[in-house]
């Protein structure tokens, strides 16, 4: 693992990417790592672009936005097209094939999973797609411990939604094992 890990979670407003970013950052804080979490989004609360950056490092982090992305999660075609070229040479690309249909540069570091479809099918709603994809990302990259992610989810979502999100997390972990 590199000393500084730059993650970009991208998609559209309403997919819960900023919450996913906060949860990932919180998991890093639980491990006493240095972390910054930033975001960029359009004025719409749903639709429009949205992305969250999380940088995790053992050293002080100066610039808080991802410029050399170690891992890109793209939940929409637009996000994938926009940020693909900021992915570092050995960077990991994770796409939600429910929405990302065209992929210009598939490499061995690309994971193609229909997260939204799976969430709809197994949890009855796409609402926990963000957590499922985040858990998948954590399992594949190993940037934080699975237990830290679990604790961060419990700290970050409303009590009524902890169960469904932990289920989504487990599905994400299981998908990554395959």
């Amino acid at each position, binding site marked *: 693992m590199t000393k500084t890990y730059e993650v970009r979670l991208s998609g559209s407003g309403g997919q819960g990417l900023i919450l996913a970013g906060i949860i990932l950052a919180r998991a890093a804080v639980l491990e006493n790592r*240095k972390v910054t979490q930033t975001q960029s989004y359009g004025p719409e609360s749903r639709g429009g672009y949205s992305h969250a950056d999380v940088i995790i490092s053992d050293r002080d982090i100066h*610039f*808080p936005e991802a410029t050399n992305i170690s891992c890109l999660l793209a939940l929409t075609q637009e996000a994938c097209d926009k940020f693909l070229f900021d992915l570092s040479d050995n960077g990991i690309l994770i796409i939600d094939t429910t929405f990302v249909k065209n992929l210009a540069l598939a490499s061995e570091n690309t994971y193609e999973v229909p997260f939204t479809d799976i969430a709809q099918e197994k949890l009855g709603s796409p609402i926990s797609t963000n957590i499922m994809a985040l858990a998948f990302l954590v399992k594949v990259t190993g940037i934080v411990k699975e237990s830290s992610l679990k604790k961060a989810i419990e700290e970050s979502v409303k009590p009524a939604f902890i169960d469904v999100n932990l289920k989504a997390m487990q599905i994400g972990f299981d998908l990554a094992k395959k």
Partner: protein
Amino acid sequence: MTEKDKTKTTKEKASLAAKPESKLEEIQTKRERKTVLMQGNEAVAYGALDAGVDFFAGYPITPSTEIAEILAAELPKRNGAFIQMEDELASICAIIGASLAGAKALTATSGPGFSLMQEGIGFAKITETPCVVVDVQRVGPSTGMPTSPAQGDLMQSKWGSHGDSPAIVLYPDSVKESYELTIRAVNLSEKYRTCVILLLDEVIAHMREAVCLPDIANVRIINRIKPTVPPQWYKHYDENQKYLSPLASFGEGYRYHVTGLTHDSHGFPTNKPSEAAEMMERLRKKISYNIRDLVQIESYEMEDAKIAIFAAGITSRAAKAAIATARAEGIKVGLLRPLTIWPFPDDAVRKMLRNVDTVIVPELNQGQLIHEVQRLTKDKSDGGLIPINKVSGELITPNDILNKIKEVC
């Protein structure tokens, strides 16, 4: 919960309404001394509470809204007051009024609201009323680009109000520093009896970082000087040796007049040239005679630097990242970062200009701070002073700065 904590909580409940000190204890208990993920705006809100702010009036605006949101929830618990006003004109006037009644008052806004507040800021300065305005900058002019970062209000924060009005403006670069400089802003407003402005970048206001806030016992608080003379001897604008005069609150038996007109030492309007000049000089001197107390800078990797970057706020963080890469390649480059942008750190900038060949000034505007550096440049040709500007709503990146460093070295 330990036995000790239990006692404390019970004690607190009992004394919550009675003792003003209970405010501080409550925050301390709630805080739990641990590292948490915190947003810049949250840090400002908690800094305000720790500094003793007990009055907030404002009108919500992105990207400053979280400050109002948190204070709306927290102030009433601490016997403080939160008022959502009809607009920013009313907001600035409300905090001035609250301050004259003895409150520590703060408001938070962004560019469009900051423009509306300028008249009130001038009023706070001429009436020497302590208050703090937080301006979380976004792309302007006018409504501009909500939620996109810019550093376009640097000059406005000094010159936005008409007339000569010496300014104190602080500018943090991290979540932790947002907390610290909010406390400092409140302290300086109380000490110098003026409106202090805290400028924030959108990215810092919305960014989350791991922060462990200090124990409340270690937070240094400055309260306004209260008059010790009997009411009949009180002068609202009295000069002591450092141009800092005591301030009586409304309702304490001291009578004075408050007006935006040029006034005498009791606050009554005057057109006498000698009294007008004295008032204006006092406003100037209380800042310029206290430069050392007001100016804070960070000097980073400057010891052997041949190239210096002069940058504030978020842009300085891109500079630090660029410096790390450049230094690894053997390029001697450093950063001078003002934490106080007004008054401008003239001496530190002069020293920097003496020691380096080239100064790069990156800023998220079309060129503001660079003119201040230029003002202090005597012997150097224009070639030694290089701007990097961006106003597209994106940040200046480490690569933007690194490329410029490589061009000049």
